[in-house]
């Protein structure tokens, strides 16, 4: 009974993130369109796009190697694993003990590494540009991410997400400037990692400044569908991460009843909806920055992470 129950909840979590990710992307697009006084496509459009891509024939370049065909599945698998580890509606799920923040960063890093390799695989100039820019962004975003992780881990006393969420929900957190700085840094990193507005424009193809799309130009059919789904999952994953660490209200405890899980799920949907609203409003208000300004932007995130870690030592003593 116990084992089946925990297996079921874990499976529900995996299904939830997979099912919710395209809806979230559709929701953000819809709000952005409404803010610009356009009608916008329906909320279910991303599902239809994915289905259409799945049915289409794959066109491979002559120069493509085996790596090019494997990478979409690799990326999707790594992102899905990470997304199902992060506590969404309940913490302490069956595989939650593996939900280590450093492991999460490493999994996402390896997904990006393979994506950059695939971008260069066919040998087109666009793919090469995309890969080199992606790696430039990553080389700044990953240290910033790790510093933020260290800050959170030092405050909560653990790098494991369930423990962190439990600690954040308790009352002895208090007002801490380090956590505020970590939140801002994490939001900046999330914007850069998901190629959202100030860093990259998610809604254009064939633009000289594109980063993420440039690496995918050679992909088609089900490969493209996998990559698109992986990037949708990544957006959901970062929002869940921010929600799990900084808005831990209503997350159900280990092995609690179905009604707690249901309440946790409703709270989770509300939190993600709130994040999506903020993201859409932010993207509508801000302009894209030049590619060569991106290091400054991410440098600021790195600085915030470093400052957060430093300020933590003042209150604790060396």
């Amino acid at each position, binding site marked *: 009974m116990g084992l089946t129950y925990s297996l079921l909840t874990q499976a529900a979590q995996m299904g939830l993130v997979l099912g919710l990710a395209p809806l979230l992307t559709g929701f953000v697009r819809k709000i952005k369109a409404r803010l610009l006084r356009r009608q916008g496509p329906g909320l279910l459009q991303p599902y239809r796009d994915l289905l259409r891509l799945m049915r289409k024939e794959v066109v491979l370049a002559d120069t493509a190697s085996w790596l090019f065909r494997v990478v979409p599945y690799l990326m999707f698998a790594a992102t899905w694993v990470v997304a199902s580890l992060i506590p969404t509606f309940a913490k302490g799920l069956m595989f939650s003990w593996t939900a280590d923040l450093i492991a999460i960063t490493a999994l996402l890093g390896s997904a990006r590494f393979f994506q950059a390799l695939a971008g260069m695989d066919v040998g087109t100039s666009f793919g090469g540009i995309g890969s080199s820019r992606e790696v430039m962004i990553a080389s700044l975003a990953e240290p910033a991410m790790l510093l933020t992780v260290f800050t959170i881990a030092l405050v909560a006393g653990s790098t494991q997400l369930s423990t962190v969420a439990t600690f954040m929900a308790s009352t002895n957190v208090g007002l801490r400037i380090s956590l505020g700085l970590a939140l801002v840094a994490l939001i900046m990193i999330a914007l850069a990692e998901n190629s959202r507005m100030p860093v990259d424009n998610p809604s254009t193809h064939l633009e000289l400044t594109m980063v993420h799309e440039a690496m995918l130009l050679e992909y088609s059919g089900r490969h493209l569908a996998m990559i698109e789904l992986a990037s949708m999952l990544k957006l959901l994953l970062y929002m869940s991460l921010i929600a799990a660490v900084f808005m831990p209200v209503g997350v159900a405890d280990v092995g609690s009843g179905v009604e707690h899980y249901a309440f946790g799920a409703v709270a989770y949907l509300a939190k993600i909806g709130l994040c999506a609203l903020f993201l859409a409003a932010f993207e509508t208000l801000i302009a894209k920055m030049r590619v060569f300004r991106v290091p400054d932007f991410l*440098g*600021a995130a790195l*600085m915030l992470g470093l*400052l957060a870690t430093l*300020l933590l030592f*003042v209150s604790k*003593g060396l």
Partner: protein
Amino acid sequence: MVGTFAFDLAHLLAGSLVLVSMLMLYQDRLTALLNIYALHALVLALSVACQAYIQDAPHLYITAAIALIFKAIVIPTALHRIVRRLGIHREIETVVGVGVTMLAGMGLVALSMVVMLPIAAEAHPLAREDLAFALSVLLLGLLTMITRRNAVSQIVGFMSLENGLVLAATGARGMPLVVEISVAFSILIAFIVIGVFLFRIRERFDTVDVTALDRFRGDRR
């Protein structure tokens, strides 16, 4: 004491002061720099008022009021007017790039913590932490002064340095009000003198870039 709300609030405000100092290093526009300076003074005023509440020292409220009125309102407004009257172009030429400056700033913050925490180990945790933050604000103000070529932004660096001094003084308990007022007024006088100098520099060299002074002196480097 540690972990109570008042302590957390003091920590939050003093930490924000360091953060705003870092922001000051990051700015490359003159108008934005002046606005950030006003924010700096506002955070300082809040921080001092918080200290006044914690230490139950009413004269610190006067210090907070001075910080709020002079540093957050009068001086930024005056600097904005100077910038407009001089018609200085808005870009700040920094001596080195933003990234290097930020790294140096982080190093200074780390340095001041490493220096201050062991020295003040016996002190009250609140005072100790205030001193560490104050030292970093002071060093960051100095860094702002030496990484800018524009005289106006050097003034801003100088003023933020003074904010660090005020933070240190309020954290350490028992700075008499007379000293505080005289420091505030000497800063104001320094500001006026520097302002006059600015106009003189501008009149003679048609720029407020201080490298023009080096050229005038004849130092060829």
